[in-house]
């Protein structure tokens, strides 16, 4: 009977972990593209430097 439970545990466990991995990976890629597009649409490197000085 323990083999039967092992079969279920392996199947559900592996598929659950893989689903989690797919999910996290997709969210990470969404954020990566998003941050780069935002950077490109922003004011530019001089403004980033100026922002840094003002904050300090």
């Amino acid at each position, binding site marked *: 009977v323990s083999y039967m439970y092992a079969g279920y545990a392996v199947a559900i466990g592996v598929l*659950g972990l893989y689903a989690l991995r797919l999910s996290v*990976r997709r969210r990470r*890629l969404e954020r990566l593209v998003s941050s780069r597009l935002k950077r490109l649409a922003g004011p530019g490197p001089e403004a*980033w*430097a100026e*922002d840094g000085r003002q904050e300090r």
Partner: protein
Amino acid sequence: MSIATNSRHEAISSPQVPASGASGAADVVGAAGVVGVVGAAPQGWSKRTTNIVRALGAAAAVGIAATVWLGLFVTPPGATMGNLVRLVYVHPAVAWIALYVAFGIAGAASVLWLWPRTRNSFFDRLAASAMEVGTVFTGLTLVTGSIWGKTTWGVWWAWDARLTSTALLFVLQLGYLALRRVPADHEARARRSAVAALVAAVDVPIVHFSVIWWRTLHQQATVLTPTLNVTIYGSMAWTMLLGFVAFTLLFVWMLAIRMRSAALEEYIEGEGLDAALEERWAEATIDNPFDRTPDNPFDRTPDNPFDKVPDKPARGAGEVIPVGAAASFDAGAETRRDQ
């Protein structure tokens, strides 16, 4: 499991990636005057698609939970195998996805990509995603089958025709995934992958008919028999059917998520986001303090004006992490910071 929870997260579109596709992206990027360089962002999921993917994830989670409950606690033990027969609700369903669904989709998509009239990068992404998810299911088919074999045959593995041809299929799938990682331009990679998928698909009928063509330890088919004479009845048959449906829904959900990731990866690789950001640095009148030179591999001086980010604060007080503009040139750094 957290499948339903994940699907909820999946459904949330990033506010910065235009959900309306090309025109939205052009608006965002056009402001920087680089629309020609980066093109349009991959089309985000509409609200309707998001809801469908959510529903798929939830239905798959509920279906699998119901299959496990019915399989373990409701259905009767088998006449000859006793409780071990309960593996019939998992192993054949997983094998169904691995052999027929995943390979069916990957094979059809590969043919459609190779056919000049229907050639579209969508089919390449579909084939690759189906093959990757299918590889996980093939691996599980081998593992759950091996567990079942240990209890019925007394060994974890036998060089039986069904087992060996399935193992060969798994190796072919791993080869396909390795082939996709070989550096090449998009079209060359798609072409060689499509051919590899079709070569691997030749093994599918061999796996299916192996129990008929050769004398094998593995039992004959339970459902997909040559005469379609099903050899399972009552609650056991319904539970098995529910398992097939639930695992198929899970596969479709995984395929949707994987395809979205593939589209984003393709966008990052192909649309020159990094090149566009480099161009912006080149246009700037100041030096990029994060230029990776031997003298200055990564500037971490306290006076560095880029040690604060306008849009993302650094984590942890006193933490000297260069999370400035140039950090976004490094995909690895970006990803690590998100963790």
